[in-house]
Each structure stands twice: as structure tokens, then as C-alpha cells.
């Protein structure tokens, strides 16, 4: 406020002026006469003193105004630390205010900058944490066992599968030495081999090393395909390894089964072929002296050729169904009708052997949801087996039951045939399996029942069953879901 400054000037001038005037008057009136002196006492000195008093009051007022303004600045500073000071007062007070405000602005700017940096850092931290959680989630979600160790062989990360495999808590075992976690006390042989493998891989610095490792857990042996990859830090330094263990037990089993199957097939095919080849050679070399022998040889060649053909057909059928290559065309099918059809075809064969066939129909609805041709094949196989392995004069019964509660239709074929020894019953549905004692009774490829099992169980979700007593007879059968039950499911 200009007025306050001016006031200061005026007040000071008045005081100074009046004091000067008073001094001047004193000097002037020191030599003056009575009357003039009296005028002086009455007039000049009071004026001077009055002016001086006024001046002092004005000075006082100015002082108060100044301190008041400073006090209000202090109050403002104390009250609100984040706002600028409203400038006020005279030049000095203004300058003070401006200086304080400048300092304030600088600090504000600086604080704002720091706050921004803090926010950025917080965002980065959150992103990093998110990424770390993602990485962990990724590792945890992997079905194969994953173990990550650092250059000091301490566990960095492991997932649930690894925890289950090696029997440790995968979430709380960080930084424990891997040798401790994968100890040979907890699981059987192979684990030390695994830890050694990890260390060797790390030391070798090779990008990837692969080995098959066998673990025994609770009596079961499992094979794992283990790939260990080195993690490189700065330069070529290996700062850790990641081991991934993939369970290949099942694959190995299947591979072994395939191998066995191929061997078996090759043997089965070569057997009739051997006969064909040998008998042909005998004929060519003239080893069959008479017509009778020659006819015999021709007949063997023929029958073995047929056998070979049947074998090939059965093998192909079984393989096709197993590998899902055959299109299964399901529709509502009446078992009774199918059975009736097949009975017609087999009756003449049965009559040759004087075997009685009894068919029993169910009294209720027996439709199943199935592929007509495939189920016909099943019925044919069961019926022809029954006739083949029943001696002359025997009997065969085929009956169909419907279990509405379970939603199943059940067909059983019971014969009074040669039966199957107890220890062989469980194998009859295996590929190429032929009951030793019964091989003489009839020719067979050993694939008929396997085909039945594939069709019923694999293609139709049903079940095959067998009961038998050697020397008495056998009951073979299958269950299929009823058409209503299947329709509800689909």
C-alpha cells in the first residue's frame, strides 16, 4: 500500500519538522520581548509539540500496520502450507511475500516432480509384480513338472506337478537346496540321478540336454522325458537351469503294445503262409506221389489261403475300429430284429452239427442306439463261436433282456460247448488269444472276440462279459445303452 509508505514519510517529516521548528523557535524567541515570547509560548510551542505528537502517533500507527501485515503473513504461512501468500503491505512486506512465494513455487514444482516420479515408480512396481505373477501363473499352470534352480543349486520356482512328483510343497520351498527337496528317502531310485543330471547340465552349459528318467513312487514305476535347459545371464554365464519333466509312461506302454502287436501279427500271418509256401514247393518238386496226396496238398493250400485272408480282414477291421477310422453310423436299432436275421444265417451251419438254437425275445421295447452293421457283426461272431466250439448234439440259447432302470439292453449267448479254463477266461477278448485246449476244436484267428469288444466298448460305450466252465459251456454277452437313454445323453 502506497499510502502506508507515504504515511511513514509524512510522519517522519512531521516529527523532524516540528522538532526543527521548535529548535528554531527557541533560538528566535530567546532574544524576543515579553509580548512576542508570550505569543510564542501560547502558539508556536504547542503547535510544534502537537505536530511532534501527531508524528509519533503516525509512526506508531505505521509500526503497528507493518507488524500487523507481517503477522498476517506468518498466520497465512502457518495456516495453509500449500498456497501462495497474498501479497500485502508496503514495499518491504511485498518483497518478503514475493520471496516467500517464489520459494514456495520452487518447492511446489520440485514436489510435483517428485510425486510424478513416485507415481511412475509405483506403476512400474505394479507392472513388475503383475509380470512376476503372470510368469508364476504360467509355470504353475503347466501340467508337466517344472523345476527352476539357480547357479547354487537352490530352488527358485517349482510348480504343483513337480511338488507332487518329488513330494515337497512347491509354494514354500524357495531357496532350499534341490538335493534336500529331491531326497532319496522320500522317493525311490532315480532321484539322485536327477539331481546329478541337473548339475551336470548346468556345468556343461549346453543349451538343452535330454534324458529319460525312471521314478518309482509308491511301488509304481513311471518314466519321464526330462529336458534341462540352461538359463544364461550376462555373457555366457549360466545363472540357472529349468527342468521340464514330461510323463511318457503311457506312451512307452502304448509303444510296447504296438511293438508286441506288430510281432504278433507278423507271426500269425506267416504261419498260414508257411503252409502255403511249403505245400506249393512240395507239389512243384513232385513230392506228392499220388492223386490223393496231391488233392490233400491243394486243399491245405486253399484252406490256409482262406485263413490268411480272414486273418487280414479281421486285423484290418480291428485296427480300423481301434483307430477310429470306421465311421460309426448310429441309429435306433432293434436287437431282436438283428438277432433274428443272424439266426436265419447260422441255422444251417448249426443243423450240420445237430445243434439246437433257442432264441428268446424280450417282452419290452429293446431298441438301442447303435450302428446296425457293427452290432450284426458282434452277434455273428458270438453265434458262430458258439456253434464252432459246441460239439455235435449240443444246444445254444440266445436271449435279450432289457433293464429299464439301468437303461441297458443285454444280449447273452449260452452254449453247451467245450468251455474255457478258469485261468484263461480273462484273456479271451485279447487280440490273437486262442484257448489252448480248444484250438483243435475249430479254426480261428483269435481276433473275433477282440473285434466284438472293440465294437461294443469303444464304439458304443457298452460292455462285454463272459462266464464259462471248462467242459460244461460258456455264456458270452454284451450290454448296450437303450435308445432312450442315449438320446437323452446326446
Amino acid at each position, binding site marked *: 500500500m502506497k499510502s502506508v509508505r507515504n504515511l511513514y514519510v509524512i510522519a517522519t517529516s512531521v516529527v523532524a519538522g516540528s522538532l526543527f521548528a521548535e529548535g528554531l523557535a527557541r533560538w528566535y524567541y530567546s532574544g524576543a520581548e515579553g509580548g512576542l515570547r508570550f505569543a510564542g509560548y501560547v502558539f508556536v510551542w504547542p503547535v510544534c509539540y502537537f505536530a511532534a505528537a501527531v508524528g509519533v502517533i503516525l509512526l506508531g500507527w505505521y509500526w503497528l500496520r507493518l507488524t500487523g501485515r507481517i503477522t498476517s503473513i506468518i498466520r497465512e504461512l502457518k495456516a495453509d502450507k500449500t498456497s501462495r501468500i497474498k501479497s500485502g503491505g508496503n514495499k518491504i512486506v511485498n518483497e518478503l511475500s514475493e520471496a516467500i512465494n517464489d520459494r514456495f513455487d520452487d518447492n511446489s514444482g520440485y514436489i510435483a516432480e517428485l510425486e510424478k516420479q513416485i507415481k511412475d515408480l509405483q506403476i512400474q512396481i505394479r507392472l513388475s509384480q503383475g509380470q512376476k505373477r503372470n510368469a508364476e501363473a504360467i509355470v504353475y499352470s503347466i501340467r508337466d513338472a517344472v523345476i527352476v534352480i539357480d547357479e547354487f543349486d537352490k530352488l527358485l520356482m517349482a510348480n504343483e506337478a513337480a511338488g507332487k512328483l518329488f513330494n515337497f510343497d512347491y509354494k514354500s520351498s524357495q531357496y532350499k537346496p534341490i538335493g534336500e527337496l529331491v531326497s532319496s528317502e522320500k522317493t525311490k531310485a532315480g532321484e539322485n540321478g536327477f539331481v546329478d543330471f541337473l548339475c551336470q547340465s548346468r556345468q556343461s552349459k549346453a543349451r538343452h540336454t535330454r534324458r529319460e528318467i525312471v521314478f518309482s513312487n509308491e511301488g509304481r514305476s513311471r518314466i519321464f522325458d526330462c529336458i534341462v535347459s540352461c538359463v544364461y545371464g550376462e555373457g555366457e554365464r549360466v545363472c540357472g537351469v529349468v527342468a521340464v519333466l514330461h510323463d511318457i509312461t503311457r506312451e512307452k506302454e502304448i509303444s510296447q503294445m504296438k511293438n508286441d502287436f506288430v510281432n504278433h501279427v507278423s507271426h500269425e500271418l506267416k*504261419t498260414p503262409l508257411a503252409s502255403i509256401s511249403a505245400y506249393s*514247393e*512240395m507239389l512243384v518238386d513232385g513230392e506228392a*506221389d499220388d492223386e490223393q496226396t496231391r488233392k490233400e496238398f491243394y486243399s491245405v493250400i486253399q484252406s490256409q489261403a482262406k485263413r490268411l485272408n480272414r486273418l487280414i480282414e479281421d486285423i484290418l477291421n480291428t485296427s480300423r475300429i481301434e483307430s477310429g477310422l470306421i465311421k460309426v453310423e448310429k441309429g435306433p436299432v432293434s436287437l431282436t430284429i438283428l438277432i433274428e436275421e443272424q439266426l436265419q444265417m447260422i441255422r444251417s451251419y448249426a443243423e450240420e452239427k445237430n445243434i439246437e438254437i433257442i432264441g428268446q425275445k424280450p417282452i419290452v421295447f429293446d431298441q438301442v442306439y447303435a450302428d446296425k452293421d457293427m452290432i450284426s457283426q458282434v452277434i455273428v461272431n458270438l453265434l458262430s463261436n458258439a456253434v464252432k466250439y459246441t460239439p455235435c448234439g449240443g444246444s445254444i440259447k440266445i436271449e435279450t433282456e432289457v433293464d429299464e432302470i439301468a437303461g441297458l439292453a443285454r444280449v447273452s449267448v449260452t452254449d453247451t460247448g467245450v468251455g474255457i479254463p478258469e485261468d484263461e477266461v480273462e484273456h479271451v477278448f485279447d487280440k490273437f488269444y486262442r484257448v489252448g485246449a480248444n484250438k483243435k476244436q475249430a479254426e480261428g484267428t483269435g481276433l473275433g472276440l477282440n473285434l466284438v469288444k472293440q465294437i461294443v466298448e469303444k464304439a458304443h460305450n457298452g460292455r462285454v462279459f463272459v462266464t464259462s466252465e471248462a467242459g460244461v459251456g460258456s455264456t458270452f454277452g454284451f450290454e448296450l445303452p437303450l435308445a432312450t437313454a442315449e438320446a437323452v445323453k446326446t
Partner: protein
Amino acid sequence: MAERKVLVADDEIHIVHVVTIKLRNNGYEVISAENGADAFALACEEKPDIIVTDFQMPGMTGVELVRKLRQNETTKDIPVIMLTARGFAVEDKEKEELEISELLSKPFSPKELLRSIEDILYQRAVMRNK
């Protein structure tokens, strides 16, 4: 010279039959069995000059039969020819250990079988005369 005796063991009757005819036509006496156990019993009883056996038979396999033959005083020196439908059924090591004279794979030629039998018996005769 007495007729040489051959024991044929195979669960396939057609194979047994064709081998029997071939050998009989060429002056051999033939006895046969359909499984390992019968073959062993017959070998002990009849002491054939040579045995022709299949690799795969129900019950006792061909290899098991030969092992048993080699452990028995009466039969340990009888030469054996093995017929097999599987290419790598018997390893070289096993063949040597069991002293199997020859491995013939099926389908086999009866003519070749005859030739093998004759060669083996001839060599035996030569060694015996030394």
C-alpha cells in the same frame, strides 16, 4: 545204415505233416509232437538223431525246450534246427549258448530244411569218425 530219426515239434499240424512227408520221402523216420513238453518226453524216449522245432509253441517255448534238452544227459548232444516266424526271435549269443545248429525263418522251404538236416548229420558223422 539205420534209418535216421527226426523229431519234429510244431503246434501247426500242417507244418508237421509237410515236413514229415518230405523227410519220409527221403528216407528218414519221423516222430512228431505238438508242444514242448511232449517233444521233450519223446526226445528222451526215442533219442532222435536231430530235432526240428518251432520257436513259438503253447506252454514250453522252443527255446525253453532246447534249454531243457541241453540240461539232460540223454539229449544234450542232439542237434537242433529251429523254425521261427519272427526275424529276430533268437539272438546270436543265445543261439551259440544253446548250441542251436540252424535258425530257419518261416515261410521255409522243405528242400532247404532237408539240406540243412543232411549237412548237420554229415558233419556230425565226420566228427564222430575222427
